[in-house]
């Protein structure tokens, strides 16, 4: 579904991601692990079109997308839940969700998706007229995910969804991702919290200062304490 090949990315003259390749198959949950500053967000932002790669090719559903705009990718079924959730704090919860459906012009579709979103996230329905900024961190993460689901993406990309959340909430988020995945959505995940992420992942890549240094099945990497220590520091 997604093929990243020999991609190099930088800001100005500094290169931060060096010639990396990885792929995501339909239906999989893939995790990219890496410490702070490894280049995880840079890779995701480049995939969704917010940033341009210097070199290499990115293909999504067999189409070259390295030059595509974010709105075109949303239209084609790709969605990013960005790092730190980035909900709109001065829009209501309802407005945040509707913004997620911005490209959808069919009112009926919006209505029925809203219905299923609220079924899945009753907390958001209770708080739909509250400002986004008044939600708790966990609720904001749910909102960020709900907002992304409004276009029924085929590939959902998440940048550190566990960031700043209490362990119990992290558990909820990963359970939710597992559930979203089993409803047919392919998931690409970037995390520092290796353990919980690897538990739900089919495969994982380990990123170290802009290079992929390891690749394997989720279980393998999780059970290999040496690898974990070497590349991830604390797990």
């Amino acid at each position, binding site marked *: 579904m997604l093929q990243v090949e020999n991609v190099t990315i930088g800001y100005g003259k500094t290169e931060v991601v060096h010639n990396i390749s990885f792929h995501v198959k339909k239906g999989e949950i893939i995790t990219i692990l890496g410490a702070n500053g490894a280049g995880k967000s840079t890779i995701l932002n480049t995939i969704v079109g917010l940033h341009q790669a210097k070199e290499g090719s990115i293909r999504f559903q067999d189409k070259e997308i390295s030059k595509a705009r974010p709105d075109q990718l949303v239209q084609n079924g790709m969605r990013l839940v960005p790092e730190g959730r980035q909900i709109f704090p001065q829009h209501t919860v309802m407005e945040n969700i509707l*913004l997620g459906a911005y490209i959808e012009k069919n009112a009926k579709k919006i209505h029925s998706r809203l219905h299923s979103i609220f079924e899945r996230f009753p907390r958001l329905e209770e708080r739909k007229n509250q400002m986004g900024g008044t939600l708790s961190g966990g609720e904001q993460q749910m909102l960020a995910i709900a907002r992304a689901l409004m276009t029924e993406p085929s590939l959902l990309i998440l940048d550190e969804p566990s960031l700043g959340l209490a362990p119990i909430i992290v558990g909820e988020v990963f359970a939710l991702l597992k559930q979203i995945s089993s409803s047919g959505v392919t998931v690409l995940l970037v995390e520092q919290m290796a353990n919980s992420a690897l538990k739900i992942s089919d495969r994982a890549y380990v990123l170290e200062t802009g290079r992929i240094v390891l690749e394997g099945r989720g279980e393998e990497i999780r059970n290999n304490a040496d690898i974990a220590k070497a590349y991830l520091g604390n797990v």
Partner: protein
Amino acid sequence: MQEIVTALANGSIYALMALAIGIIYSTTQIINFAHGSVIMIGAMTSYWLLSIFHMNYFTAILLAVLINIILSMVIYKVSVEKLGDLTQNSSWIVTLFGAGIILDNTARILFGTEPKAYPFLFDGHVISIFGTKIMIHEMMMILVAVIIGVLYQIVIQKTNFGRAVRAVSFRPDTARIMGIRSNRIVLMCFAISGAVAAISGALIAPITFASYTMTYSVGIKAFAAALIGGLGNTKGAFIGGISLGLIEGIASMIVPGGLKDAISFLIMIIVIIVLPGGILSAKLFTKGELKTEKI
């Protein structure tokens, strides 16, 4: 009483001008330095259509609005969009100033240097309310400003487009991953800003005379009103505009005519020093304001 109405009427138009600056500022964080020129072009083209083509007021202003919409979109395309990420460079200061100067010079060649008497709405008809003689034109200035101000707030608060404008203002990149084409939204904001500029230019021209120098004589007040109300605060724009109108009105009663503008700008400078975020940033108005989200 009459003076107060005049001050309010002028203030309403300053408010519209400040609103137009705020519309662009809120989505781009840039100040459209060509805005004075755009106001002037609105006044001059509608003057031309009125006096040379003998169109009626409504058609003339409508056409001037259309011309200004196109003009503003061109300004965006040429002087702003081409620059790329506006947070990374300040070239827009030069390109927008440049665009303004090009417009001023063009207007000077096209329309001449002589200030033109611009007709009042309803032929300057005056009605008497509670013994005060008030020009219908002045009432229209206030009315039109209020209608545009209210309409703008409704659009911004209640529509899909408005939600997107607020999203782009707050977090352009996050808006883009929602599928919003931030550039399109900004282009639309330039268009709206141009339309509002045409209307404000046409309504103030009977009072100031229509001339290519309106860019400075009137345009500068747009920036003053915008700053007093708080840049990018589209509600504050009205506070700023009305305050400026009243300050001017009071100043012209107590100091010689030539000092009126100096007093207005002195007060503007004081407001900016005391309340850098504009009048609405005063403690009185910011109770319970939402801060940013939790991380």
